């Protein structure tokens, strides 16, 4: 029925039927023209050029093959290889091309040493997947297997050898946290635009240097156009762009020194960071427990992964940059510098330590229950008297303590060039007001002045802090990468020292604190005397970080359960030698800072300067 005759019963009455019917016709013409245009293109492709396309498709089909680049090496400061790619061979079948099955199974069962049944079931399984995609039968073939398989390939269709690079870590556990591991690229990573050039199934850095320097290590992919016939067999190469190998990354760390430190660290968990105070170069970075990086290559087994992830000591974590510890008495160095620089009181001002004091109705104890007697700043550092620093904390107030903590790099990441570094925390009353309902208390000020409470730092922050004391107040940016060398030998990056800030202190202050740090080691009552080495001037400070609140003092350490024992902390530096070093040692649940972390620092320094280790007998 025509539209016009019905206009009388149309609801709105404002319709212009002719207008839309006419426009619909125009639209129709437009759409038909578009379809004609498409048909025209189709005509050109399928009729005019059909011959050439058909040739490409049937006779000389060109298949593009990716040529993955060889990943760059990771080297230590002396050029020793820490991570490199070696070829690994996989034997695969192409399901669509399999012909003489029985012969094939017999042949390869013998070569590969696999039962015929196993190969048969794998081949059956391969048929459920894509017909023309290689299905792996055995990975990591030996050279002998490879040469024997090669001689059979011409006779047996459907069998093939694939070469894939395998990441190898000759030093196994050494530096595992710094080097980091590889893994298959995730869909999240694939979607990021910066990662163009990756395909699913590619390996990509997942932690440490491997992820941080991924863009340098990766290299550029090449390709090869290969002619294959209608059945998918390779005929010839048409064109090729060679892949470009990735750059080599050279670390600042000498793996021999590193390995020595890893070996002397017999306790179950903790960290050592050693840096050069003048340049900020990291000399060693030990995080315990560690793991063998080769477990991840080519891919980690389900069982190993569960084991690593489920371990309550978290071996995958790099404690050097992610472990948060109270710096404990090691922080007294900063409190002391604050006292002197702010002229809170004279260094000669004495306080009487009776082993405890009362603040706001609460008893605060010194670690020495008998008390240190009358102590000035020097004695307070040497004997690590808590009462003196409680008084200092009350005088300074929390904001001034936090200011000096921040000046020495606590509370911000050190930007050492490793991923996922934690910033730690230098707390202030303002900070507490943001997240807590109760206000800042004096008790919190004094616990902060001895490096406990909310104040937490990473081992690398402690090492950088120590270095800043050693070099006279320069806060360095630590670095683990010394150099990046492209595959053609050109150096594209060379580390130059970066001073994050110059800490402005009144002249003479540093010398006063340093003389006390020297006596920490030399003085008979010094808490760091286990770190004594003849003919070497060592400046140090100990720390013992409480894990749980010590209500009762239990004398015999052996009786305290492991997880309730205190963390041992030791910072030390040597500055009057041509090569300087500053280090921080943390032994988790190691007991007293001087007694368990001290000897590690001593052995490290002795090794670094090529001196014989005097051993623990020195203390007696």
């Amino acid at each position, binding site marked *: *029925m025509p*539209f016009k005759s*019905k206009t009388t*019963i*149309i*609801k*709105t009455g*404002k*319709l*212009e*039927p002719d207008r*839309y*019917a006419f*426009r*619909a*016709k125009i*639209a*129709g013409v437009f*759409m*038909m023209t*578009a*379809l004609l*245009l*498409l*048909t025209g*293109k*189709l005509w050109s*492709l*399928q*009729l005019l050029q*059909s011959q*050439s*396309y*058909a040739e*490409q*498709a*049937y006779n000389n*089909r060109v*298949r*593009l093959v990716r040529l993955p680049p060889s990943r760059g090496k990771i080297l230590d400061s002396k050029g020793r290889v820490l991570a490199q790619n070696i070829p690994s061979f996989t034997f695969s079948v192409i*399901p669509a091309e399999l012909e003489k099955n029985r012969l094939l199974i017999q042949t390869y069962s013998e070569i590969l040493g696999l039962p015929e049944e196993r190969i048969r079931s794998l081949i059956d399984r391969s*048929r*459920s*997947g*894509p*017909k*023309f995609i290689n299905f792996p039968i055995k990975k990591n073939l030996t050279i002998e297997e490879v040469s024997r398989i090669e001689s059979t390939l011409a006779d047996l269709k459907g069998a093939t050898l694939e070469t894939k690079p395998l990441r190898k870590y000759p030093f196994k556990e050494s530096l595992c946290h710094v080097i980091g591991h590889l893994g298959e690229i995730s*869909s*999240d990573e*694939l*979607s990021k*635009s*910066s990662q*163009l*050039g990756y395909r699913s199934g590619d390996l990509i850095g997942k932690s440490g240097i491997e992820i941080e320097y991924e863009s340098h290590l990766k290299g550029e*992919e090449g*390709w090869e*156009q290969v002619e294959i016939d*209608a059945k*998918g067999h390779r005929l010839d190469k048409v064109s090729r762009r060679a892949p470009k190998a990735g750059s080599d990354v050279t670390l600042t760390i000498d793996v021999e020194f590193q390995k020595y430190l890893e070996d002397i660290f017999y306790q179950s968990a903790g960290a050592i960071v050693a840096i050069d105070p003048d340049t900020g170069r990291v000399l060693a970075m030990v995080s315990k427990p560690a793991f063998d990086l080769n477990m991840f290559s080519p891919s980690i087994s389900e069982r190993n992964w569960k084991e690593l992830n489920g371990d309550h000591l978290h071996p995958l974590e790099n404690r050097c940059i992610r472990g948060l510890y109270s710096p404990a008495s090691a922080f007294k160095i900063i409190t002391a510098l604050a006292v002197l620089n702010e002229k809170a009181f004279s260094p000669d001002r004495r306080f009487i330590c009776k082993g405890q004091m009362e603040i706001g109705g609460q008893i605060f104890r010194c670690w020495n229950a008998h008390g240190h007697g009358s102590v000035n700043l020097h004695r307070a550092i040497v004997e690590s008297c808590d009462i003196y620093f409680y008084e200092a904390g009350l005088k300074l107030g929390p904001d001034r303590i936090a200011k000096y903590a921040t000046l020495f790099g606590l509370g911000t990441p050190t930007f050492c060039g490793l991923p996922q570094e934690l910033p730690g925390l230098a707390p202030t009353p303002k900070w507490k007001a943001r997240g807590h309902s109760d206000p800042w208390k004096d008790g919190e000020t004094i616990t902060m002045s001895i490096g406990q409470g909310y104040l937490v730092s990473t081992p690398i922050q402690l090492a950088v802090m120590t270095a800043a004391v050693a070099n006279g107040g320069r806060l360095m940016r630590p670095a683990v990468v010394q150099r990046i060398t492209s595959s053609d030998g050109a150096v594209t990056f060379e580390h130059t020292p970066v001073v994050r800030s110059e800490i402005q202190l009144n002249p003479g202050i540093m010398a006063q604190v340093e003389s006390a740090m020297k006596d920490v080691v030399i003085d008979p009552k010094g808490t760091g005397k286990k770190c004594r080495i003849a003919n070497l001037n060592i400046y140090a400070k100990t720390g013992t970080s409480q894990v749980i609140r010590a209500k009762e003092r239990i004398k015999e350490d052996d009786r305290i359960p492991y997880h309730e024992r205190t963390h041992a902390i030791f910072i030390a530096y040597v500055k009057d030698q041509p090569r300087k070093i500053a280090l921080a040692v943390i032994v988790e649940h190691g007991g007293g800072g001087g007694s368990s972390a001290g000897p590690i620092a001593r052995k490290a320094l002795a090794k670094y300067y090529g001196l014989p280790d005097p051993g623990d007998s020195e203390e007696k």
Partner: protein
Amino acid sequence: MANFDWTLASLTLILTGIGLILIYSAVSPMGEAGKIFITRQILWCLLAMIMSAVFLLFDYSFLEDWAFWLYASIILSLLIVWAVGRVTAGSRRWIEIGFMRFQPSEFAKPIIVVILAKYLSTRENQSSLSLPELVRLMAIVLAPALLVLAQPDLGTAIVILLISVSLILFVGISRNAFVVIGLFAGAAIPLLIYLGDKILLDYQKKRIITFLYPDSDPLGAGYHIVQSQIAIGSGGVFGSGFLQGTQNQLMFLPVKHTDFIFSILAEEWGFLGCLALFVLFGLLFIKSLTIVGKARNEFGALLAFGAISIIFWHVFINTGMVMGLLPVVGVPLSFISYGGSSLMAGYFCVSMVLNVSMRRFHYK
């Protein structure tokens, strides 16, 4: 049921059937693993048919009443996708609902047609669109278009804009507005090129560059175009036959059961097969446009026109990009490509046209 348009319904079913045959061909080289795609697509077809039948029970005027809420809910869904959507093939386009994954951007297209039809049919005067009206319309369209672009789904964003422009041109714009837009466009193109460089993601830029120079990246994006052109060209007049396309069977063709399914038709069924498909789509368009001219009111006419323009742009952009006539932007071929959301949206569009056709007389 007297006015049910059997021709239109049959055309849709034939197209869906062709789609199933092509998907079967596309997934057959995957072996057993491919079968699941066929089963799933058949289930989606049944669901789409049930949905269409239910929709046809009601007079389409309810869409007019619900236009705002439909629009609000699609904006909300797009926001959800943007926020928590799941990552597939490099972009967020999905919402998980129980066992189903649903792609709101596919439904954004028909819903934009609904809201535009409502807006355009309830205007005070019937003259051509003035400039302020156009600005308001663009605001309605740009909100979902930008959310879709952020997914990032350039293809759908382009289709949304093309549908809106189609509807606006269908209603007509005033001469003043035309002149101003012309000047504005002249000034905006350099700006757009500049912004496009900033906003478009690397892979989107790469696709456009590859479209212009396919040889620049034979391994990456250019691979799609080169391989699909070989597939189409090698099909010739009669094609290589069902399951005989070597480009397909040797897995040269990428994402072939979804966006590149047309190349399988071209390879295995040749020029004649493609021509048949174009004829079927052509009939679908002409039949629908006739219905547009006969609608009982302006809303109905605009609704039907918008719905059919969605299908048209999909067909044009998809086949154009597969043949190398347009850049690869990821638009499915309506009724043919594998994918539930796309199929449901296609059925919804045809149902809207059918609904307008069934109720072209007013019985009150």
